[in-house]
């Protein structure tokens, strides 16, 4: 467990960034760009449940930053925390990242808040002399309020080997800022890559349907599955997706299992109760708990454009509320 304190919370139109400082030098967490951590916090004498978040900052920065949409009970609670709150971090986990020994060009496909691991990677590469070209294709709902837009522009401007293209579902195309309106579908990717999908390494991170679609597009264009890395926080899917990262998947699942076995599971109904208790500030110490979402699209991988009511887990199934009831659909699995 690494003890950090919340230095500040920066809120933007559609997301927020938490900056965390290590409590001591010994608490400082070492990581490689693209990895993720679990984050919990202390309120009074109580320890909160933990959630997984990709690290947004680069390893050479003194503090750790994580980003998320403020769209659920847990992230709302994170957004309300005061500077100085004790934060408990575990990790790092995962192997999502670039292979510096491979000089082939890299295409990064991100959607929504799935940009987070790429931010850490790109920040760490900003001032480096790169052999390969890196293209980030970043899908967002709107042409405005894109997370980290200015910083991405700055990274692309600083490093000639890095290109950023924004695909916005709604809005107006602005070629001078590399913003194009449309969907990240086969047609769009074919145009961007000029129909040349080969001899590249691909990295995908975003909501599950986005990742599944992107994976399918690449495979249908004869991309070798070994050339595709997929990062997912959905425990079940992490096992079944992720063309080249079973180790990352296994690590995450192990993390999940260890937390589950050690501390039990609460559903979101329990969480709501729990959060209410924190607010009342009259509770005793509770064990760390791992959340199993119910109807919460708040994880650092979710975006309503691609929202999927079913959060898949390897060990704990998810309850679906009536509002997000999913009717039966038969398909090839």
């Amino acid at each position, binding site marked *: 467990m690494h003890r950090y304190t919340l230095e500040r919370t920066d809120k933007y139109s559609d997301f927020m960034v938490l900056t965390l400082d290590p409590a001591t030098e010994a608490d400082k967490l070492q990581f490689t760009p693209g990895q993720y951590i679990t984050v919990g916090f202390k309120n009074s004498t109580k320890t909160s449940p933990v959630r997984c978040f990709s690290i947004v900052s680069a390893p050479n920065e003194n503090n750790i930053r994580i980003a998320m949409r403020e769209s659920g009970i847990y992230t709302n609670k994170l957004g309300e925390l005061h500077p100085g709150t004790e934060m408990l971090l575990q990790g790092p986990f995962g192997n999502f990242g670039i292979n510096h020994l491979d000089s082939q060009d890299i295409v990064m496909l991100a959607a929504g808040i799935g940009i987070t691991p790429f931010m850490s990677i790109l920040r760490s590469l900003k001032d480096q002399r790169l052999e390969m070209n890196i293209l980030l294709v970043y899908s967002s709902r709107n042409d405005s309020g894109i997370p980290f837009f200015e910083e991405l522009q700055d990274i692309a401007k600083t490093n000639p080997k890095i290109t950023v293209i924004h695909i916005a579902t709604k809005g107006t195309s602005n070629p001078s800022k590399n913003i194009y309106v449309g969907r990240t579908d086969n047609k769009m990717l074919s145009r961007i890559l000029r129909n040349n999908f080969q001899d590249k390494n691909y990295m995908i991170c975003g909501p599950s349907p986005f990742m599944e679609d992107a994976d399918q597009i690449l495979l249908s264009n004869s991309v070798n*599955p070994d050339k595709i890395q997929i990062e997912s926080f959905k425990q079940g899917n992490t*096992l*079944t*997706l*992720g063309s080249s990262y079973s180790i990352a998947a296994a690590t995450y699942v192990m993390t999940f299992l260890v937390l589950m076995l050690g501390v039990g599971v609460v559903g979101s109904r329990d969480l709501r109760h729990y959060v209410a208790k924190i607010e009342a500030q009259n509770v005793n110490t509770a064990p760390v708990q791992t959340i199993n979402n119910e109807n919460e699209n708040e994880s650092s991988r979710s975006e309503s454009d691609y929202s999927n009511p*079913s959060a898949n*887990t390897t060990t704990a199934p998810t309850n679906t509320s009536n509002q997000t009831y999913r009717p*039966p*659909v038969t398909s*090839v699995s």
Partner: protein
Amino acid sequence: MNRYQQSGNAVGSDIAITLLASKSQADLIFKELWVMIHGFEKRFSRFIVDSELSKFNRNAGSFVEISQQFSDVLKACIDQANRTDGLFNPFQLPALQKSGYKGSWPNVNQIAKNMDFSEKESNITINALFIKNNKAKIPKNSAIDLGGIGKGYLLDELSAFLDNKGIENYWISLGGDIICNGQDIDNRNWIVGVNDALDSRGIISQIESKNSEKFAIATSGTTKRKGQNWHHIIDPQTSKSAITDILTATVVGRSAIEADINAKAIVIAGSKKCAQYIKAKQVIGALVQISDNGNSKIIKYGEIK
């Protein structure tokens, strides 16, 4: 009574279970269903090194002691292989691995050495599978995969469990293979959407249950779990990925196992021979999506209108 739905991931698939029950009953039943599902995966996964299936394959050539459930699935394999005149054949694991599908999707190339059977034979008929009391044996130079039958078998088991518990209204989806019984909360029949093979968000048809009767739907196809020059449906006649113009086949069946196997057999048969198969095997209904010069064409058979 309310409608409850849980979803999760196991047996390499997204799973959704919906049932009408009281809260306390639903909680208890969901728990038991997930235990059954994870237990099944642990026993029958070809990607788990110490699964009963993996151990069975490693001991090919000898009679191996097997569990009752394993024995039941092997017997179902024999039934289905005979019923489909060999279009279903569990001995295709070496061919499947040879084609490129070794590891758990999508890490298809990653597999432990003692789980790689790609050098073994696939050209083996169901007659080479022997079951004797609580033991079974396959030829030394062979290995079986129960992926083609497992989901259907498990769905039928889960459905039978719910029936025994007195749950009358439910549907379960294992990776898009579905079994439905009874009705929805508003007394309407269950309606199952059929996914467009070319657009993961698209629905090309809807199939409605009749008079609240139990029915199963399975879809098989070549549009997923595929790589360069291969897909996961192996034609036992060639021991290679089936050469077919069918993108997906959706089949309605009396049981999930029957629907599942028929869907695969129809894909293998291709558009020219599938009508013959559907008629000969008395398939209740089928919807076939075909690739036609880059466009897709939908053909409906039997009770699917």
